[in-house]
């Protein structure tokens, strides 16, 4: 059996919980209507964020979308957030069914 899958891009953003709502509003405006969030902790250029309390906790946000939308979002967050917030983002291709959905 072979399944016919289609390619989409998975964009993962790891950032401060503090800006969750702000970020979701931006995503909505850019045309992202589906996403998944998990709570996370970590370490990076802005130090240890170990989720011991709200100030220093992270979220891990995933969006499956077209390559071009992923790039739009990525360059938006690069220009709006990278300078001032703990934030890391990356892309890679994934295969999905239901291409009309993403």
């Amino acid at each position, binding site marked *: 059996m072979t399944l016919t899958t289609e390619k989409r891009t998975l964009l993962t953003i790891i950032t401060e919980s503090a*800006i969750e709502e702000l970020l979701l509003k931006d995503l909505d405006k850019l045309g992202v209507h589906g996403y998944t969030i998990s709570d996370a902790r970590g370490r990076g250029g802005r130090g240890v964020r170990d989720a*011991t309390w709200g*100030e220093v906790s992270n979220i891990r946000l995933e969006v499956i979308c077209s390559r071009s939308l992923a790039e739009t979002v990525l360059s938006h967050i690069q220009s709006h957030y990278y300078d001032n917030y703990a934030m890391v983002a990356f892309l890679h291709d994934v295969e999905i069914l239901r291409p009309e959905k993403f």
Partner: protein
Amino acid sequence: MIDIVILFFILGLSAGLLRSELRLPAALYETLSLVLLLAIGLKGGEGLAKQALAPLLPQLGIVVMLGIAQTFIAFFLLRVIGKLNRADAAATAAHYGSVSVATFAVATSWLFSRNIAFEPQLTIFLTVMEVPAIIVGIILARGLSKQTDWRALAHESFLGKGVTLLIGGMAIGWAAGPEGLMPIKGLFYDLFKGALALFLLEMGLIVARQAGELRRRGLFIIAFGLAMPLLSALLGAACGVAMGLSIGGITLLTTLAASASYIAVPATMRLAIPEANPALSLAAVLGVTFPFNILVGIPLYYWLAVKLSGLN
């Protein structure tokens, strides 16, 4: 004798500094802060039910001015003496112009255990003083910029968790009165000090985490973290005397003035002044001012209140 709740703070602080593996679950910390906020609100509301509210309006005007004045003073010190950049100075100033619920709770607990009464409107002052410093801080950072989303900000400020629970608790306490509150006193009154003890245990752990940042920042931030509450305390005490508050009331208003926010303000500043460094403000507020206030400040402010009200 040192208050029992303070001993829990010292335990948390020591455990944190010794790098013990002690952690409190995040849900416990949130639950404790929820219960404490509601309890403070309920108690305040219960008291307010017994008095007319209109005469309080001018007092509210005074405490709003007090918060604004503190923010300006702090900004001046941080910018001119501390040479901080504008964003950092404004954001940190907003913390000091606002208030700390935990510090307020420790002070009420200190007064209760010494049977010193205070006016119920202090809970309203606590609520009212949370917000003006935030607005002043943003204006100091940005000017009256069109960029600031004031609507979102008002929402953030007035419907944040702390203000919602304080106002909600006061409304319930006011509506229910002492009779109506009876059935829930088991949770909100009898367990108050135990909850505060556990909360301060966690606060000790959080404060210990500021040690590294403080070491990096050097002396100025420590000096500011000590001087600013003392300055604010003088202003606060003066306002308290001017309003004709009781000794307990003056002590609490002085404590409110001296205290600095570490929950509502950091969250709002993170969004409103993104380029300010939150670690800097928190190192001062949590690493210096909060422990100073609960360990040394409160008895000092009481002493000040006694002296000043003697002058009257």
